[in-house]
């Protein structure tokens, strides 16, 4: 009986050993071997030449031999070879790719853009991976086309210039843009940041340190938006403060506007809206209120702060953003029209909305700087004053007895889909609006 039980136990052990999972290395080796066998059998099945998946391609594309000597070769190019991405015979896509250029990368890299990302890199979103990565091989890690920040500055030229020319540098920026930014997408923050300020900044800057507190005039700024005052990419002012600084801020006279450190609410403002700014800028505010028409943002919502940064700014006049972008937050349609216009109007193209419009208030409709359109346009287009189609106060528009013929009788100042900012497709269509006797 004992002998029978012993044989039974041995048999169980043997079955157990057979069914037990094998060591990973052994499994991998087995899988590789199996794949190789399959590949070889496929090669023979399709009568493929040896090296048909890669080396044969090089006979016609010899330049890739050099490319493949680079230190970082795209893994699928090594194995299985060119056919990982290219269809050897025919394809519906350019370069005989086996999928559309914008989507082929995600077949192997599906998690590059997380769902519900708070910000995404446009190049990645558009599937233009090759803008940053060389799809074959590169001298740089991750198959990047250039090393470090130089790659980013190819597109973000202006930012690159700011960083290069800044007198005071920010160490993390010198280390690389990816210190603070995620290159593909950020699930947590805007502008591809790894997290939002001030949390991101606090990773390096201890807000409890006496030096930090002293530098911020003892104001409780630990949870404030650092980038309101600091140009994190570099600045010509110490402390990375933006180049244009509001005087009270420069002299650390916080209590000119805020309740100050003696108050239980030190950051609270002493007055609301434009009333606060009026304390120093009474001339500007009084002039504004003497006009027929106010630019509503100067009194609505956050009033002056709708357009101006109260502490410091990279823009002149402490504007929050460059003028076209700033004006475009409300007048997006107008800016878009200009962008689509066949003929560009230089003041708008150059972001000089204030060349024609008063930003605060005016006596004129559309807040124009001059009442007369002819005079306004004439301040740049001098020729209008001597040889041109008759225009001005004495020339009545034939379409409407209450209107005079002026520049906007034939042009739209923010552009049209037609040349010379004319609202009609042909010259004859334009002219026969008034000269109806020539209509056919």
């Amino acid at each position, binding site marked *: 009986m004992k002998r029978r039980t012993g044989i039974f136990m041995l048999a169980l052990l043997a079955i157990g050993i057979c069914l037990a999972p094998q060591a990973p290395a052994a499994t991998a080796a087995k899988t590789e071997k199996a794949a190789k066998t399959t590949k070889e059998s496929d090669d023979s099945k399709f009568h493929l030449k040896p090296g048909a998946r890669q080396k044969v391609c090089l006979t016609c594309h010899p330049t890739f031999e050099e490319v493949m000597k680079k230190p970082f070769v795209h893994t699928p190019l090594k194995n299985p070879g060119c056919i990982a991405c290219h269809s050897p015979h025919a394809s519906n896509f350019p370069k005989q790719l086996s999928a559309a250029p914008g989507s082929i990368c995600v077949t192997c890299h599906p998690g590059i853009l997380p769902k519900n990302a708070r910000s995404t890199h446009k190049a990645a979103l558009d599937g233009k991976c090759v803008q940053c990565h060389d799809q074959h091989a590169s001298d740089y890690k991750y198959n990047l086309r250039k090393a470090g920040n130089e790659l980013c500055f190819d597109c973000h030229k202006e930012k690159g210039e700011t960083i290069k020319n800044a007198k005071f540098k920010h160490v993390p920026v010198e280390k690389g843009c990816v210190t603070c930014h995620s290159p593909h997408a950020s699930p947590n923050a805007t502008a591809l940041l790894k997290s939002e300020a001030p949390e991101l900044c606090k990773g390096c800057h201890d807000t409890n340190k006496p030096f930090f507190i002293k530098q911020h005039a003892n104001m409780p700024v630990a949870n404030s938006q650092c980038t309101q005052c600091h140009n994190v990419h570099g600045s010509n002012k110490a402390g990375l403060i933006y180049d244009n600084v509001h005087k009270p801020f420069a002299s650390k006279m916080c209590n000119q506007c805020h309740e100050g450190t003696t108050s239980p609410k030190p950051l609270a403002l002493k007055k*609301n*809206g434009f*009333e606060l700014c009026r304390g120093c800028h009474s001339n500007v505010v009084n002039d504004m209120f003497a*006009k*027929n*028409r*106010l630019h*509503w*943002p100067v*009194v*609505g*919502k956050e*009033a002056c702060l709708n357009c101006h940064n109260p502490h410091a700014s990279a823009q002149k006049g402490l504007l929050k953003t460059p003028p076209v972008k700033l004006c475009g*937050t*409300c*007048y*997006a*349609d*107008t800016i878009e029209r200009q962008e689509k216009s066949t003929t560009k109007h230089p003041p708008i193209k150059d972001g000089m909305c204030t060349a024609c419009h008063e930003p605060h208030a005016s006596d004129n*409709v559309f807040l124009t700087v001059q009442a007369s359109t002819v005079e306004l346009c004439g301040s740049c287009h001098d020729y209008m004053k001597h040889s041109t189609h008759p225009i001005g106060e004495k020339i009545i*528009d034939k*379409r*409407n*007895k*209450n*209107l005079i013929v002026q520049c906007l009788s034939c042009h739209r100042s923010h552009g049209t889909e037609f040349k010379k900012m004319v609202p009609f497709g042909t010259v004859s269509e334009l002219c026969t*609006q008034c000269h109806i006797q020539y209509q056919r």
Partner: protein
Amino acid sequence: MRGINLSRCMLVMIVLLLPLHAFGAEEIRFKHESSLYADEKGVGLNQPEGVACSNDRLAVADTGNGRLVLFTLQGGEFKGGTEIRLSQVLYPIRIVRNSSGDLFVLDGKQRKVARLSADGSFKQYVELSGLPVEGMVIPAGISLDGNGLLYLLDIQGSRVLVFTDDGKYQRQIVLPKDYGFIADLAVNSKGTVFLLDSVHAMVYSTAKDPAVFLPVTERLKDDMTFPSNIIVDDKGLMYISDQNNGNIVVVNQDGTIRRLFSTGWKEGALRYPTQLCINSNGDLFVADRANSRIQKFIPLK
């Protein structure tokens, strides 16, 4: 036999389609009838921004000339054109009429509301009193409800203020969160307040809760460009001046949208229209600002 089947099919189709027609967007169509260019002395209008109407009267805020012009309507035709130039009203931008014919004029320069009698004589400024928090009120729009209450869009305080017609504070409604810029307000006969957001090209109202603004339309940026003025008729239709596209857009409560006219210089076409008014006959008056005229449109029955 085949003919009978066809008739039956047609009948069924008609029966099925009838409710669709009944509950769908009402077909709103207007025809241009006349345009107003000048006062009784022939002085031309200059960029008029305001218009108030009844079945027999029309008041124009002739903004560019800093005056009002009063007309009567007889048999559908404009008569008169009396100039009202007041030292108390320098730059009229909006004008509304109450049931007794008094005019409430918003002066854009002084940021005050002046009350005038039906013949245009100045009665008084509407002195605002009893506000919960004292401070400057900067009105950008005015409207009256069926009970004669005065509604002011206070952009400085981000709120709509409700007063009696002599300025006694009644209540306030805070503007909705995340608005772009509220350019105008309208009140219907039930006292529901409507707000027009120019930046987002959308309308809010207090239809569900009189104390809170909620969106009644989505962002209509494909249909309107920087709309500037709104009125609401008794059927609940919203008439909106699509300022930068030079048109009037009618939005039904169900979100159906219809463009009424075209942009241009010719009569019937509009450029940068501003205030609108619709009388009980259904006639629509438009302050056609950039064309310096008032246009009258009559409904097509």
